[in-house]
């Protein structure tokens, strides 16, 4: 029987939900010696002395201390554990910059087809024509969305695609004999992966300022875009949800300086079928298939980060490439200027299957529709928040209209109601809503980055706006409520500082092992 937790919060004592009452126990604390789920197939070959096959000096002295549980125990443990998670299927998840749109279930069905799921990556191309054709068609579709002719599906995630983009830029310059380009320009609103990527690629980050409207400061860009710059990395719309009206001028300045222009596709959901990074003047675009193309987020992956590039970047693209011959598709490795590979095999094919199914389902019109409604929903939400008086304490940080996401500032709320963005987020959990992204982008004080996506109904958006309004009303009367929220979640606010000071990152199995328990 699970231990009850002695609840210290007043009022709540004795009034816990079953999920709150149940003590968290890992699978390693369950089961008993001798229990098992797996039945090993019979040894059907003549048995040979195992120590002859693998000498004792190369063997473990004791087995890894994995759990010993039966299948029912295993299932109960992980199914019960799943209920301690909030998820997109269950509720609204307006995480800005993450594009939490519905994950169509057809995709799981087609991805599970054995012809896709049980295909070995080293199968001969002649016997993987379905896979190669799928990848080739996906490349063409992504290239069309991006407005750039050449695509590699290889990178494992968006930030992996970024690394590819920066390495491609380096290769391009070095191939032209230009070895002085050591800098990458990124705006101060950039996602954290951008500067981390630049360092991994051996280059130096130089920040470009934002202007009062949240776009790139053109004068600052002109001053910094010189012949020591390899690349500009930009997201457009940016992380404030604003489409930079000077985007053509920006890429022109960068190209005139001899540098490449890289488009971070994290915000592609705003522009599919409406405008294209290639047409804006970019050389390289990465896609997040787990954002705009519905690959489920999985609690933190898998993702996939294909890139599309311009003609001048093509020679340096990773190998293998998918090529189409007269009668068949093939993998091609003979590209002497390629930067090489960034991972094993061909990339996250399971994600390609899902993204391809999505593109087949929606088609040209549906992709455009998705972006249009994403923008509609975000602007409608701003209007509802304004109507409900939320904007007074949570004003829009920039502009009046937005693309697919927008940023509110919690600074007035903090000042006047003594409740921070963090507290608002925690109180939203009690409303069964996942909070938006908080404290990002860095240039907005007490930021709240909200991206509803196109798959939410009007009623859901109304419900969210009303929840925010209610939390503000409640805060005006008693700020302590939000400050101590959440109350109804399986656990309440957690001691993150303690977890960082004295990290315990695995289950202790011996009495002497360190533990926070």
């Amino acid at each position, binding site marked *: 029987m699970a231990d009850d937790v002695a609840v210290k919060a007043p009022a709540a004592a004795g009034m816990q939900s079953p999920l709150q009452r149940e003590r968290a126990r890992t699978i*390693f604390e369950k089961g008993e010696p001798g229990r098992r*789920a797996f039945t*090993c*197939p019979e040894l059907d070959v003549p048995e*040979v002395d195992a120590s002859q*096959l693998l000498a004792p000096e190369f*063997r473990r*002295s004791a*087995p*890894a201390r*994995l759990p010993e549980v039966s*299948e029912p125990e295993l299932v109960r443990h992980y199914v019960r*554990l799943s209920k301690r*998670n909030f*998820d997109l299927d269950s509720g609204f998840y307006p995480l800005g910059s993450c594009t939490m749109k519905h*994950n169509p279930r*057809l995709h799981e069905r*087609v991805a599970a087809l*054995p*012809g896709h799921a049980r295909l*070995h*990556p*080293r*199968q*001969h191309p002649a*016997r993987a024509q*379905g*896979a190669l054709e799928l990848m080739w068609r996906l490349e063409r579709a992504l290239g069309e969305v991006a407005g750039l002719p050449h695509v590699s599906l290889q990178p*494992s995630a*968006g*930030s992996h695609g970024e690394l590819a983009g920066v390495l491609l830029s380096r290769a391009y310059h070095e191939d032209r004999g230009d070895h002085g380009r050591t800098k990458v320009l990124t705006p101060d609103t950039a996602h*954290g992966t951008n500067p*981390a990527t630049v*360092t991994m690629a051996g280059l130096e980050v130089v920040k470009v300022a934002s202007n009062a409207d949240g776009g790139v400061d053109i004068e600052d860009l002109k001053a910094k875009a010189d012949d020591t710059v390899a690349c500009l990395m930009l997201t457009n719309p940016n992380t404030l949800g604003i489409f930079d009206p000077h985007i053509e001028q920006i890429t022109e300045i960068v190209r005139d300086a001899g540098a490449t222009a890289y488009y971070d596709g994290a915000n592609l959901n705003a522009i599919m079928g409406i405008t294209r990074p290639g047409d804006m003047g970019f050389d390289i675009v990465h896609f997040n298939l787990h954002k705009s193309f519905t690959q489920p987020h*999985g*609690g933190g*992956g898998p993702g996939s980060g294909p890139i599309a590039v311009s003609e001048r970047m093509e020679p340096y693209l990773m190998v293998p490439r998918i090529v189409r011959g007269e009668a068949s598709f093939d993998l091609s490795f003979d590209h002497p200027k390629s*930067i*090489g590979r960034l*991972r*094993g095999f061909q990339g*996250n094919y399971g994600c390609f299957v899902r993204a391809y199914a999505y593109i087949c389902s929606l*088609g*040209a*019109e549906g992709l455009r*529709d998705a972006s*249009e409604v994403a923008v*509609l*929903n975000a*602007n409608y939400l701003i209007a*509802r928040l304004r*109507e409900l008086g939320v904007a007074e304490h949570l004003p829009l940080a920039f502009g009046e*209209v937005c693309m697919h996401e927008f940023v509110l500032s919690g600074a007035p709320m903090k000042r006047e109601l003594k409740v921070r963005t963090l507290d608002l987020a925690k109180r939203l959990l009690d409303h069964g809503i996942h909070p938006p992204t908080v404290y990002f982008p860095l240039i907005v004080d007490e930021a709240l980055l909200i991206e509803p996506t196109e798959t939410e109904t009007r009623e859901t958006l109304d419900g969210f706006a009303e929840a925010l309004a209610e939390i503000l009303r409640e805060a005006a009367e008693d700020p302590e409520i939000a400050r101590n929220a959440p109350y109804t*979640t*399986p656990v*309440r606010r*957690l*001691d*993150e500082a303690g977890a*960082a000071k004295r990290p315990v990152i695995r289950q202790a199995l011996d009495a002497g092992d360190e533990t926070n328990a």
Partner: protein
Amino acid sequence: MSRYTSVTPEDLRAMLAAIGVESLEELFERQVPAGVRLGRALDLPAGLPEQDVYAHLRDLAARNVSAEDEITFLGAGMYDHYVPAVVDMLMERSEYLTPYTPYQPEVSQGGLQVMFEYQTAISELTALPVSNASVYEGPSAVAAAAYLAKIANGKGRVVVSRGVHPHSRETLRTTAAGYGVEVVEVGLRDGVTDGDAWADAIDQDTGSVIFQNPNYLGAVEDAAALAGAAKDSPAVVIGAYDPIPLGILKPPGECGVDVAVGEGQPLGNRLDFGGPSFGFFAATEAYLRRMPGRIAGETRDVDGRRGFVLTLQTREQHIRREKATSNICTAQALNALGGVVYLAWLGREGLVELAELLLQRTHYAREALTALDGVEALHTRPVVREFAVRLDVGGRDSVSAVIERCAAEGVAAGVPLGGDYPEFEDGLLVAITERRSRADIDRLAEVLGAAVAAERPTAAGVA
């Protein structure tokens, strides 16, 4: 076309009115300059209803020959293990499939506890105290480990064995070209890393040394000796391991390895033509604060409940930005869930039994194949689940012809070595999983024997 949006004409009217614009078009006109507007439909086929999309994807699947359609002995890093139904069921649950990275821990205890359990399982498997919550896959994990070493000691060289997977070595080269480290390869002798050449290659400017166990040719390496050779150098010892053999192999933590990485696909994940899977990444305590990727840590909530949070986040991109230990944002959480569930399903005894079964069947297979005319062992080192043979048929093209003959008989005989190892151009890599019964292995021997015999006369006169 299919659609997942819900906007009716009535919704649209009301929403535009609330926003205060006449049309959706107006919202775009105000924000996207005319000069970059596409102004035409995307040149893509029209959308389809679900049943047609299904039919199309099924047709594409039908043009692939998968492990469902033939008896496969393909390995080289990914293996056709049996994935139990409980793994599929759990990976499809909404609560695991659809949430984002756990940034609000109060409502993410499911995912965070799974990460914690996964980290524990990997720590047990590798006998190293510290594991992260997964990285993308095997080859990029190797490259990430070398990057960790570069940040830790700043040295300019990486020494890597040719026994390491070709994709890992290539990925290492591509990324090392970025942060500026020289990659030095050490060759193989008798199927394992040449110990003398390895020791000679390691000097005071060596930042890391990397080997794989079992190596690409399936041979068990002397990990302790390889690690020991780096003792008097600054090098971080990195071992790339196959997780199933780790059920019985001496783990990296007991061999002097500092960082253990590997391809996690064999643990409960599909082949999926190469991805998604996950990479595992474990290390000694000293490297805790330099680990890439997410890490889940245990803590308490305000009421004293045990709980889990993402911890040591200051290593990561979203905080440390240009000084981050890597740029990973999205990783492989769902695949790692599959991994830990699979390990719990196998259980303490089960993983050992599975590895011992593979040991026996692999031995049987190697004996059976090397008894064939024209087939000899490429090396005779101990193997656990994969081995390499030489086909005396006259080189790479003939090896390919042998493979085609076997394929026509419904058997994928193995992965040819010649493309990645010019020194083994007559080589074939054969992998055994628990799904390959004795009857399957006997069939391989029969088919391969016939194929080699058919190709050998063609080789006559070609020296």
